[in-house]
């Protein structure tokens, strides 16, 4: 350990406080999330799933005249969903279940891996305050979610423009007034699942447990509960306000074909109105993140 640099006299250090400190945490967290292969894998998987199920399979079904997955949907309607002006109604179709599950894994990994690696401990001995550090993680995670949805939008626009051109259809771009609520709704759905992942991650402190429990809940338990809601009186009061119901209803309200229609996307529902589901999703985001932040603030990092 050769000493190559002289020691300065001890001096008072000037460090950012308040919003400056939070921004410093966001920059730190962005540096490590950006370089994390897991983030790229999750984003890539979601974008590939979205492209495959929203465009590739349906286009193959259209060109082979077999209808939507063999259910016999009119091929004209099938083509209409593949064109650029349909983006506002198809954008959120995969998010309630599949995209949401990916976002939940992302949130769970981002929050919980630091416990196993010991990086939360290291970060908290460097960062001015637990909430500053955790807030940085949340904001950086939000930026990643936004970036993934922007990439999804770009891919959707590209794929639909390509299909329109190939099928000699007029390029009719979606109305911004329709697109904005759709992207906003997609963000709310994604944020809810990512926040749920963060909360489970903070509570379990274990990436494997957090991801496993989160997936069982979002993919299995909620669906089973909605399934038995018809059998038990009053059960629907509970199942109607579950995060998955709110996410599915949001997508349904934005025009995605509901699964009850027989050929809609799994997880898309029409239980709640658009306004109700947006409000409920926002409440979930706030509650999940507050609970996670309170746990982070109080917990012993042993």
């Amino acid at each position: 350990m050769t000493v190559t640099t002289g020691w300065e006299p001890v001096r008072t250090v000037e460090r950012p406080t308040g919003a400056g400190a939070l921004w410093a945490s966001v920059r730190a967290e962005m540096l490590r999330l950006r370089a994390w292969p897991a983030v790229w894998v999750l984003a890539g998987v979601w974008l590939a799933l979205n492209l495959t199920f929203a465009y590739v399979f349906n286009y193959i079904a259209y060109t082979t005249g077999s209808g939507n997955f063999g259910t016999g949907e009119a091929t004209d309607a099938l083509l209409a969903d593949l064109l650029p002006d349909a983006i506002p109604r198809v954008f959120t179709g995969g998010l309630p279940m599949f995209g949401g599950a990916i976002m939940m894994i992302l949130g769970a990994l981002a929050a919980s891996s630091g416990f196993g690696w010991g990086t939360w401990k290291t970060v908290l001995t460097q960062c001015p305050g637990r909430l500053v550090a955790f807030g940085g993680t949340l904001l950086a995670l939000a930026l990643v979610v936004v970036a993934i949805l922007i990439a999804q939008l770009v891919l959707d626009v590209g794929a639909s423009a390509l299909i329109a051109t190939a099928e000699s259809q007029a390029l009719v771009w979606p109305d911004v007034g329709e697109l904005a609520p759709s992207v906003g709704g997609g963000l709310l759905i994604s944020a809810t699942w990512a926040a749920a992942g963060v909360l489970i991650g903070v509570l379990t402190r274990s990436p494997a447990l957090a991801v496993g429990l989160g997936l069982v809940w979002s993919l299995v338990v909620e669906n089973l509960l909605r399934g038995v809601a018809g059998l038990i009186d009053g059960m629907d009061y509970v199942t109607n306000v579950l995060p998955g119901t709110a996410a599915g209803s949001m997508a349904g309200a934005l025009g995605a074909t509901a699964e009850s229609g027989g050929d809609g996307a799994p997880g898309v529902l029409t239980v709640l109105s658009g306004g109700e589901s947006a409000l409920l999703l926002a409440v979930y985001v706030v509650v999940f993140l507050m609970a996670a932040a309170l746990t982070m603030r109080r917990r012993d990092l042993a």
Partner: protein
Amino acid sequence: MCRDSVGMTESIVVTDGLTKRYGDRTAVDDVSLTVRRGEVFGFLGPNGAGKTTTLRMLLGLVRPTRGTATVLGERPGNPSAVARTGALVEGPGFYPYLSGRDNLRVMARYQGSAEVTVDTALERVDLAARGRDAFRSYSLGMKQRLGVASALLGDPELLVLDEPTNGLDPAGMADMRKLIVEMAGHGRTVLLSSHLLGEVQEICDRVGVIANGRLLAEGTVTELRGGSGLFVRGEPVDVALAVAMHVAGEGGVRQLDGGVYVDLLVERAPELARELVSSGVDIQEIRPSERSLEDAFLEMTDGSGWTASEENPS
């Protein structure tokens, strides 16, 4: 290598009755200690004694069940205290997929300090050449050195280092100790924990001895070792023992290793020798004997001290 601690009066860390319980188990029990500016304070104790838990409380990572602590005049975890403290607690914790250098860049960003300090820190722990390799590819010793580099980021006034030489090879250990002494020489305060007595004896100005969660003693290495004494071997042993007790008092004499340890200043050796000879004792050996910190430590922890003093005179 112990340096004079005269003049180091400003307290950097003060704890008062610090206690941490996990259920029925008391990990840290009523620990009150003081670390002064510019000193290397060694927190000495066997594995599981409560050293790491105490350090965690000082860093604001763990809440005390009872008692208080002040670090750099603030409560632990206070932003101002955190900004002026560098720490390595219970092994290095870094992102495995990032390079050592990028890990330090992340930590520098969290601090809000300039990223240029990253390269200085890497050089100080001799990791500059491997700075661009992934953390997961590092050896145990390299990971440990990166942990110390992270603690050095931002040039903090106080360094809290939990077993800083863990996993290092002998040369790495010597370098690490040199670095620690050098930092203290430049006005930094170092609070380190160790289960290695030799290490603490070599580099620490003052020591706190902890076992089973309780602070058993606090003082300079010399104070803890106690005064030097005399070792006498002579025949008949019982007469030698009686004479020694007459000179040094009953409490100042112990039988050990076929001889007698007498708690007397070396200057009184001629007096003791005269008494022994005039009582008819054949003196085979009489020499100064100094306890090592290890002896003092063993005596404090289970009363089996002194035994090693003849092999490890310090």
